[in-house]
């Protein structure tokens, strides 16, 4: 369990430029359980072993989604994680194009989802537990990038002071 007062361990703090002692950093800790569960979600979504879904491919999905959404600080985070991943040089899964298509559609328009998109993932070789993991990751990213964007807006409303 990462210590909550170490900014380097919290992805949202880092992406929003918050450090211990900042008013917004303190205000986030009013909901310490949310901070903790958000970071634990990030870690589990990337690192829990899932058959057919490598951590490197999950990082590629996360990088694609955050780039597509214009969440630059998160895109940098996922790019750095991918660069440090032990399996970064291994070939991506043959299912990666289908995963990226699913992720892009889900990110830009949640209405885009239909049964055909699930069938495309199954045809690409993903089992139901891998599809659940992928959908959770992509849906989480939509949450994460909105929390970061909101914190950035709050900082702007304080004249730039975090």
């Amino acid at each position: 369990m990462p210590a909550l007062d170490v900014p380097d361990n919290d992805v949202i703090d880092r992406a929003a430029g918050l450090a211990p002692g900042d008013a917004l950093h303190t205000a986030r800790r009013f909901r310490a359980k949310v901070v903790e569960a958000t970071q634990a979600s990030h870690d589990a979504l990337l690192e829990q072993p899932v058959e057919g879904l490598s951590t490197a491919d999950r990082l590629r999905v996360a990088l694609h989604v955050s780039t597509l959404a214009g969440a630059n600080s998160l895109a940098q985070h996922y790019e750095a994680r991918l660069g440090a991943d032990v399996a970064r040089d291994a070939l991506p899964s043959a299912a990666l194009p289908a995963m990226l298509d699913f992720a892009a559609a889900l990110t830009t328009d949640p209405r885009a989802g239909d049964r055909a998109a699930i069938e495309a993932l199954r045809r690409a070789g993903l089992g139901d537990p891998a599809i659940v993991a992928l959908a959770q990751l992509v849906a989480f990213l939509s949450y994460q990038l909105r929390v970061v964007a909101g914190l950035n807006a709050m900082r702007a409303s304080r004249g730039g002071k975090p």
Partner: protein
Amino acid sequence: MIRRNGFTDETLEWRSWLEPLRIADASPLQLEVLDESHAQSRTSPYYLTLAHQPLMLRHRSAAYNAIMYAPGGLPRAERELGAMVVSVTNGCVYCTSVHAQRFEQLAKRSDTVEQVFDDPASAGTSERERAIARFAIAVTRRPKELGADDIAPLRAVGMNDEEIIDLLHAVAIFGWANRLMQNLGEPADATIS
């Protein structure tokens, strides 16, 4: 009972496009996570689908429950208003039905629900509700462009940093919840299923 624009506050069922976990096949960890996620999750196709990844579900549920139910901060009815506006904006009929009901239970009225179903952008029976609804739409539709102008109306109706963060969390986590509900299955009329 309210039915407008394809949305309703009636109870709906949800059908999974994946194979939900069979409770007889569940591991001790899966049972534990189901029970800590929601009171009815052992019979819910949604939770049984997500239970294929129990640790991912565990942390999602911890975040969700703290965001929507923790005491203090933004009144719970206002968190539900944010959740309902996001769900209408994203076209999630199932999520909308659940959170319209929760709003009605907490606020003890349904006038705002009718307004949100008609047009979330102008919905709200007070300046504060209108500010909440507009912020929820802005975060949902254009996260990249959010700025000080989106925060000012919340401050103008008296919200402090903690309440704004509560609202931001409630709105953002429906970006998460709606996408699962809309992409892993579909609503089904309770009377049909």
